[in-house]
């Protein structure tokens, strides 16, 4: 990494750890477009819609779409694609707002769905 980014070397010290520029992939955006929120364990799937004329998916967009041909929890996607969560969320926002990706399930607080709780209990007890 060079320091020709306008900030100079003052960002780099022992405490800072590795300073990276993951948001280069998102053209500097740190929040998903359209105010979308993506929970860690929300499940997404690619819609197989073609990209609209004004939107040219980047390589990371295409990787995500590829991985989401099956319903995929966002945390698994993020782990697999090895990009920071915030970056993945911005990319997911691009894809959902262009209709190429759909959120299948989302979690709310508190979890009161007794069927889900029962599934978790049965699963744990079967371990």
């Amino acid at each position, binding site marked *: 990494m060079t320091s020709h980014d306008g*900030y100079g070397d003052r*960002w780099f010290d022992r405490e*800072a*750890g*590795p*300073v*990276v520029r*993951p*948001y280069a992939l998102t*053209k*500097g*955006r*740190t*929040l998903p*477009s359209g105010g979308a929120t993506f*929970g*860690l*364990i*929300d*499940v997404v*799937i690619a819609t197989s819609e073609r990209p609209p004329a004004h939107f040219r998916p980047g390589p990371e967009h295409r990787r995500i779409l590829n991985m989401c041909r*099956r*319903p995929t*929890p966002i*945390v*698994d996607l*993020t*782990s697999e694609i*090895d*990009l*920071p*969560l*915030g*970056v993945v969320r911005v990319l997911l926002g691009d894809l959902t707002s262009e209709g190429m990706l759909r*959120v*299948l*399930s*989302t*979690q*709310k*607080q*508190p*979890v*009161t*769905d*007794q*069927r*889900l*709780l*029962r*599934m*978790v*209990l*049965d*699963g*744990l*007890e*079967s*371990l």
Partner: protein
Amino acid sequence: MDLNRFEDTHPAARPGSAVPATAKILISGGFGVGKTTLVGTISEIRPLRTEEPLSDRSVGVDDTRGVSAKTTTTVAMDFGRISFPSDLVLYLFGTPGQERFWFMWDDLAVGAVGAVIMADTRRVADCFASIDYFEQNGIPFVIAVNCFDDAPRFEPDDIRIALSLAPEVPIVLCDARERDSVKKVLVSLVRYVMTRHSRRNQATLA
């Protein structure tokens, strides 16, 4: 997303579909209390990259489109994943201990079934921050007392007093290295959450 749509698309509503139902449990407690051990005992460990905003050093030039000039450092964390034959995936997230990671707690907590707060009887005060957080956010939790070999043993009632816990909060003695013990902790959390809900529903009906 409105409630009806949520019900329609919720994987638990369609057993046998390929859409996995997902749930998460948070594993919290002080530094060195055994969170990572507990998660590793019962689940497959996966890496997750997230980022820490360098807020005290940020330039603070945000424009209205969410374009930010803030610098972040990438932080590596792990999570646990248990995949069940019923198309359910249960995730275990350890809450990061240091103060500079507080911003991540809300992200981890949204939609959680509940939390396991691990306590070490040699340093009970270490879990106060976790208890405060989950109490304030209305997230149900159980206390898992990790029984280290050299730690003094206490009765659950003594621990309840030491932590000023409500009488209904379960306290489970555990060994984070033992699979059956960890399983017991997680089962007690889910049972507690289920009875809490049914008690609430009864209270609403009455």
